[in-house]
């Protein structure tokens, strides 16, 4: 094969690989980029699709944490807008999870507008606050 033809084949092969990779990444991002909601945002814009994996962040409303009979619990997340989202979670809570503290929950909404969390991220030390919560705004009460 002539050198030039060979180089064209080489460039072609690399281009195919690159395009395939970009396409794959684009599809993956489309499907798996999880949106972030706050209670205020949901009150404004409505619930996301039922079953779609999203994150919800805010502050655990003091007095809202209740335990079930097994290892389940429910609590309300609130933000500066005054709106709340009900979250249910089965599992052990992260170390700094407390009423009045910030939390980001990952999971999905059911048809009743309740959020079923697969995982909860709370602060992990005294100084750290997730950026998204800073923008959401802590409730003033």
């Amino acid at each position, binding site marked *: 094969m002539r050198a030039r033809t060979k180089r064209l084949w080489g460039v072609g092969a690399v281009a195919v690989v690159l395009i395939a990779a970009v396409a*794959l990444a684009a599809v993956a991002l489309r499907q798996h980029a999880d949106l972030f909601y706050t209670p205020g945002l949901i009150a404004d814009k409505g619930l996301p699709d039922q079953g779609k994996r999203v994150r919800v962040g805010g502050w655990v409303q003091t007095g809202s944490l209740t335990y079930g009979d097994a290892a389940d619990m429910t609590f309300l997340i609130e933000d500066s807008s005054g709106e709340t989202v009900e979250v249910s979670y089965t599992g052990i809570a992260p*170390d700094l999870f407390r009423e009045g503290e910030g939390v980001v929950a990952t999971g999905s909404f059911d048809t009743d507008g309740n959020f079923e969390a697969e995982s909860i991220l709370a602060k992990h030390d005294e100084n750290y606050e997730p950026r998204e919560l800073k923008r959401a705004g802590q409730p003033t009460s």
Partner: protein
Amino acid sequence: MIEAGHFAAFLALAFSAAQTGLGLRGARDASGLFAKLALLAMAFAFLTIVWAFVRSDFSVELVAAHSHTLKPLAYKIAGTWGNHEGSMALWCLVGIGFGAAGAYLLKTGKPVFEARALGVQGVLNFASLAYLLLASSPFTRLDPAPLQGSGLNPLLQDPALAIHPPMLYLGYVGYSFVFALAAAGLIEGKIDRDWAKTARPWALAAFVPLTFGIALGSYWAYYELGWGGWWFWDPVENASLMPWLIGAALMHSMIVTEKRGSFSAWTALLAVLAFCFSMLGAFLVRSGVLTSVHAFAVDPLRGSLLLGGLLVLGGSALLLFALRAPKLQGGPEWLATSREGALMGNNLVLTVATATVLLGTLFPLIAEAVGQTISVGEPYFNMTFTPIMALALIALPIVQAWSWGKADISSLWKWAAGFAGLVGVFWLAGIGPFDIPLLAGIGLALGLWLIFGAGQEIWRRAKTVDRLPKLPLRVWGMTFAHAGLGLFVMGAVLETSGRTQTTLALEPGQSAQVAGWTMTLDDVRSIEGPNWYADRAHLFAERDGTRTELRPQKRYYPAARMPTTETAIHKTGVSDLYVALGDGRRTAGGPTRWTFEVFVNPLIDIIYLGVLLIGLGAGLSMVDKRKKKAVTS
């Protein structure tokens, strides 16, 4: 004492400047001298910080913020680098150390080249020292000095986490010297067999500690955090993975350049990119732009300075590359089906894989710039990174026997048939008695395929048993590394697909069934340690006649006002039974009900054994004394 250290650091800055000026002018011995002087100065400066921690000198602001008299001595010392400023000081020390090592060890017979490498290293060291002294100084005093320190983050009082930063930095910053060698080669216009022979041990010297550093971080997260996993595709983890992937591509590309003189442009580019990714990692982790479970306390100003440094240093190097790459010589011709072709494919796959990780890590930032708040988690990476890497791994045993220039591919169909057969066996096992999910079956097949391939290749080279010990160390290194990769893949896939996670709520005396184990809660006691108090559960786990006690704890450190989870792990040899203790919930008028998260993690040790072998293999390759053979085209 700390002021003496502060002064010494400024001396190191001056020496680095001298090293740079003299080096770029070609004065090998003079720049080498200043490199060694810079090391002496910086080592002293660093030791004064360590000394301040050891003596709990709370008049030093860094010590007051990050230490406490109650800390055990080992963790006081490790506290030096367990914070932003101290770890930047460590970064500088390692960079200067590599420069001095280069000054001592480089013997290429080309003094101008060596001087230039030292000069570029001097630039990098100067930049990091300037950042340290002007924006992140560990040397500041507090007046009046507090009586007690406020830094007692219990998460940092752990052996794995104490060694993790030095290991990682030997890796990240080690690539700075490879970057310097590449820049010197580009200035000269020569990235050839001699260059690669010189540079490859340095690239390996960075790769080995980086591998161990990542493994240590992962293992720590596994046993400490109580989440049952060993990799979370968290931005900080990704920041360490990206230079590792580029480093892996670099190592292999260098082999081609060393043996054949080909891939000059790719090797030079990868050498520059490896350190660029190290710098990018430092920026991502310290600037606060990304939400992470490992985030350090953040400061946007420091972040912008780091970003600026990355853009200037990385940008200049890439510009140098763009200008000089066309002048680089190539090696002899090669077909697509040849060792060169296979390793070019390897370069491509690893680079594309790195790009997908980069995209997933940065996408939240990009989205934020257009007003959307999103996060990218594990599903994205599983969908992109895993299949791309799988392609390379499937090809590996098939192509590793290919010769330079042109390979004999007549037996290719045998290999393809072999792999298909192996997958078929595991698929059958999946629909048969073993109940392995299809994905796990493929992973297991891939792991065994790689191990078999590694064994097959070393046997092909030795041909007889008594020739085995006579093979060069680098062949053994390759064998261990690829076999380790196979073990890793096997462990990773089986663990991820076979892991079970169950939440239990037990009152004392109650039992529950989890994955074949009967878990019984005996009781939960309050205990105390030197600087903490805890609830400790006494759980009995029984299965098939084996009975073991697990004692997970939930600890509280009053000085740090922080709770931590102390997991209880029982190793059965095949899997880990892993228990984390949650809260106790008082039932109305009755006993307390305690929650537990119970994981069964199959083959988790195989994952770490595999990574250990990869590091060991790279280490063997590094100490091999290479003889240069003529190129046969």
